[in-house]
Each structure stands twice: as structure tokens, then as C-alpha cells.
């Protein structure tokens, strides 16, 4: 199908974006990479009156690191993040994730900020940024505020972004010595939305788990940090018994929705399978 008619504005400045958002409110949509938005427009799931194209705003696509924080501009394309040596060095969990984000032609357009702001519970980057304890920089007309991922993601496609705010970047704490990472997802075709996926960062000191963070996508109405599973692991020896307890505690963390792939019970099963595999990879 074709989108319903709309007006299109190529924004050159942030002020212009805020003027348009003030004027049109809910009838305006921000167009970043457009790789989710265009599909919903084509299917007429959404019919805004105005599209505000932010692709030409300056200074929003840089990736940089000061040694403590990795900064990823909202307009950094997935392919740019995939190829960034800073990302590989300072946030290897994101580097492991990117090859699973859609397909090359989509990665060439899709943006880091767009994926985060859209907050699809089945997408990789919302869950991975939550796992990493990322902070998001939200720009309003009168200034910026920073929100941690735990507070940013609030529900199904719901975030802390206000009507007249724009997500302009992400700040990711760099990986520390001894921290290990694992990323896995189960999808029917490589690059498609996963049925369930997991991102893990943490330590194994001797054979004891510590500082474990387990993020899940496709496992609820939002990207989920599995706190019960992490609690079942931290301070415990890496053993079959510990991993079984972590798997069992996922019942308290996850609440998958049935979809075309299968019922919620199947997704819970897949989440337990992925947990075991990801922890084995973490230990290897």
C-alpha cells in the first residue's frame, strides 16, 4: 500500500523542529532513518499530517569516546555503528548486536536514535542499551535532560520522551576490565525480528558470577532487564544448579506476548534456552 498524503519538511535546525512540533503536536511525526516509520505509513497504521525529516540536522551522527563514556549520536546509522572501532573497543556488546539488526540495506538507513526512540520491545537496541545502563540525551527547546534507560523505556512503544522533545544521543558506560559479553537471538530468518533475544554483560570471578545484567527482547511489552535472574546468578558459582535457578527465575522477569511465532509458553522456553547458551558463551 501507499502512505496517506502528508506534508514533508526537511528540518535544518533544532528550533525549526520544535516550532513544527509545537504547531502540529500529535499530527507531526519525526522522520529519522524511517525504517520502521515508513513501513507503518505504507501500511497506513499511522497517518501523520506532517513529517519532519531530521536527517539534515548537523552534529547528530558522531560516535566518540572519552574513555569513560561512549557517545553515539541519534542519527548514527546502524551500518556506521557496526563498522565503528570505538564501538568495538568500548561497547563490544553493541558490536556483537549490530550484525543482527535487520539487513544491510536497512542498516544503511536506520539510525541508533530512531530504534531507541521507537522502543519496539522486539528490537535489539532498546534491550541492549538497557542492559548496558545507557543514558539518553533528550533535547527540548530550552535545553537538554538525561534519562537512564531504566526510566526511559516505559511500555509498549512508550518512552519518557515528551511531545516536544527530540532524542539526540546515547551515552554508554564503557566496558570495564573483566567484564564479558554475550548476545544471541532466535529468528526465523537472519536479520528479521527475533522471536526472543538476550544480551548479557557481567563478570565471572574465579567461577563466581558478579555484576550480571541480562537484557531480553521479544519477551514482554518493553525491553526487559531480568533482575531476578541476575540476582539468582550474582555471588553464585557457575554450575548447572545456579543456571537452573536463573532459568526458573525468568518467570518473575519476563511476560512474553503470544504472536505469529507461537504462544507465550514457547517464548518462555526459548528464553530459558537462550539464557543457558548465553551464560555458557560468557564463561567460554
Amino acid at each position, binding site marked *: 500500500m501507499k*502512505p*496517506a498524503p502528508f506534508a514533508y*519538511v526537511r528540518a535544518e535546525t533544532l528550533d525549526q523542529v520544535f516550532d513544527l512540533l509545537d504547531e502540529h503536536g500529535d499530527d507531526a511525526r519525526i522522520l529519522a532513518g*524511517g525504517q520502521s516509520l515508513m513501513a507503518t505509513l*505504507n501500511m497506513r497504521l499511522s497517518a501523520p499530517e*506532517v*513529517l519532519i525529516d531530521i536527517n539534515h540536522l548537523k552534529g547528530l551522527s558522531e560516535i566518540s569516546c572519552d574513555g569513560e563514556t561512549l557517545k553515539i549520536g541519534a542519527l548514527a546509522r546502524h551500518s556506521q555503528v557496526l563498522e565503528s572501532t570505538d564501538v568495538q573497543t568500548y561497547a563490544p556488546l553493541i558490536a556483537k548486536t549490530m550484525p543482527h539488526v535487520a539487513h*544491510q540495506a*536497512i542498516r544503511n538507513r536506520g539510525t541508533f536514535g530512531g530504534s531507541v526512540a521507537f522502543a519496539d520491545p522486539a528490537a535489539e537496541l532498546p534491550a541492549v542499551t538497557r542492559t548496558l545502563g545507557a543514558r539518553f540525551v533528550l533535547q527540548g527547546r530550552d535545553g537538554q535532560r538525561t534519562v537512564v534507560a531504566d526510566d526511559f523505556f516505559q511500555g509498549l512503544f512508550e518512552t519518557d520522551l515528551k511531545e516536544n522533545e527530540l532524542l539526540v544521543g546515547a551515552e554508554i558506560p564503557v566496558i570495564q576490565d573483566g567484564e564479558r559479553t554475550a548476545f544471541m537471538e532466535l529468528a526465523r530468518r*537472519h536479520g528479521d525480528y527475533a522471536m526472543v533475544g538476550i544480551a548479557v554483560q557481567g563478570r565471572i570471578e574465579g567461577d563466581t558470577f558478579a555484576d550480571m545484567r541480562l537484557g531480553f527482547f521479544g519477551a514482554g511489552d518493553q525491553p526487559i532487564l531480568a533482575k531476578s535472574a541476575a540476582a539468582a546468578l550474582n555471588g553464585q558459582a557457575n554450575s548447572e544448579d545456579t543456571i537452573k535457578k536463573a532459568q526458573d527465575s525468568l518467570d518473575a522477569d519476563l511476560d512474553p506476548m503470544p504472536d505469529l511465532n507461537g504462544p507465550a509458553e514457547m517464548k518462555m522456553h526459548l528464553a530459558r534456552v537462550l539464557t543457558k547458551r548465553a551464560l555458557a558463551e560468557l564463561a567460554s
Partner: protein
Amino acid sequence: MDQNVDITMKVNGQQVSRRIPARTNLVDFVRYDMELTGSHVGCEHGVCGACTIRVNGDIVRGCLMLAAQAEGAEVETIEGLSDAGEIADLQKAFHERNAVQCGFCTPGMLLTAQELLTKNASPSREEIREFISGNYCRCTGYQAIVDAIEWVAEERRG
């Protein structure tokens, strides 16, 4: 507000200016306004890859980008790559290895294969499969397509 936009871009090396409805996506623009029908329209929501087009040197989904967003860009379609001879070896290999049956996916498959080979001169079969995973083919079962791309990679390495 005006639901039309003025756009200027290069399509296969030729400068074009048009006034079009803002909602026109890039693949419809090249098909209907430029009458370049080699880029195909399949699913119209980014799943099938039949509409693959190259913009400023990178492949994109022609159904997930507005023509208005290609303002000032260099747009290349299968016709451009074909006429320039850039992918003559891929086309020959697809033909000779039976990597084409109905042909609907072929233009998108060729553009995707070309981007892979410019990024990675020696892809493994697994890497080829991963890279073309965003392009559906309903005829060949992919085996022959992977064969053709692998063969061209070898040829180009000399």
C-alpha cells in the same frame, strides 16, 4: 501545508528535477516518474528487498525512503549499474549458474551482491547467505545465487 515537494537529484548520472507528492517513495519515483522499471515493488514494508536501490553508493530499501529524502543525492538503479557494465560479471554468473528463474528478485539481488563484494572480496558461503538474507527469492532456493556470487568473488580476486 503543501503536500507536494520539489526535488532535484541525479538518477543514473542524469540530473532530474520534479515536483511530486511528498508521500512518493523512491522506488515508485524511479519506476513511474523516471520510467525505470527494473527496480521492483514487492512487499512495500521493507521485508522482501525487491526494491533495492543505491543512494550515494549504499544500497537502501526503495520502499522505505521517500523520494524527497534523496534531494541532492546520487541515485543508481539496476539500469544504471547494468549500462555502466559495473555488474556485467554478476549478471553473466547469475545467468550461467541458473541463479535466475522468474527474475523478480534479481535486480535487488544483484545490487546487494555488488555491495557485498565491494565490502568483502572473499566472503564465505555463510557470509554471502547472511548478506543476501534481506532479499527474498521464491524460485531458486538460493543455492544457485550463492554459487554465482561465490564464483564472481573468485573471478574478481583473479
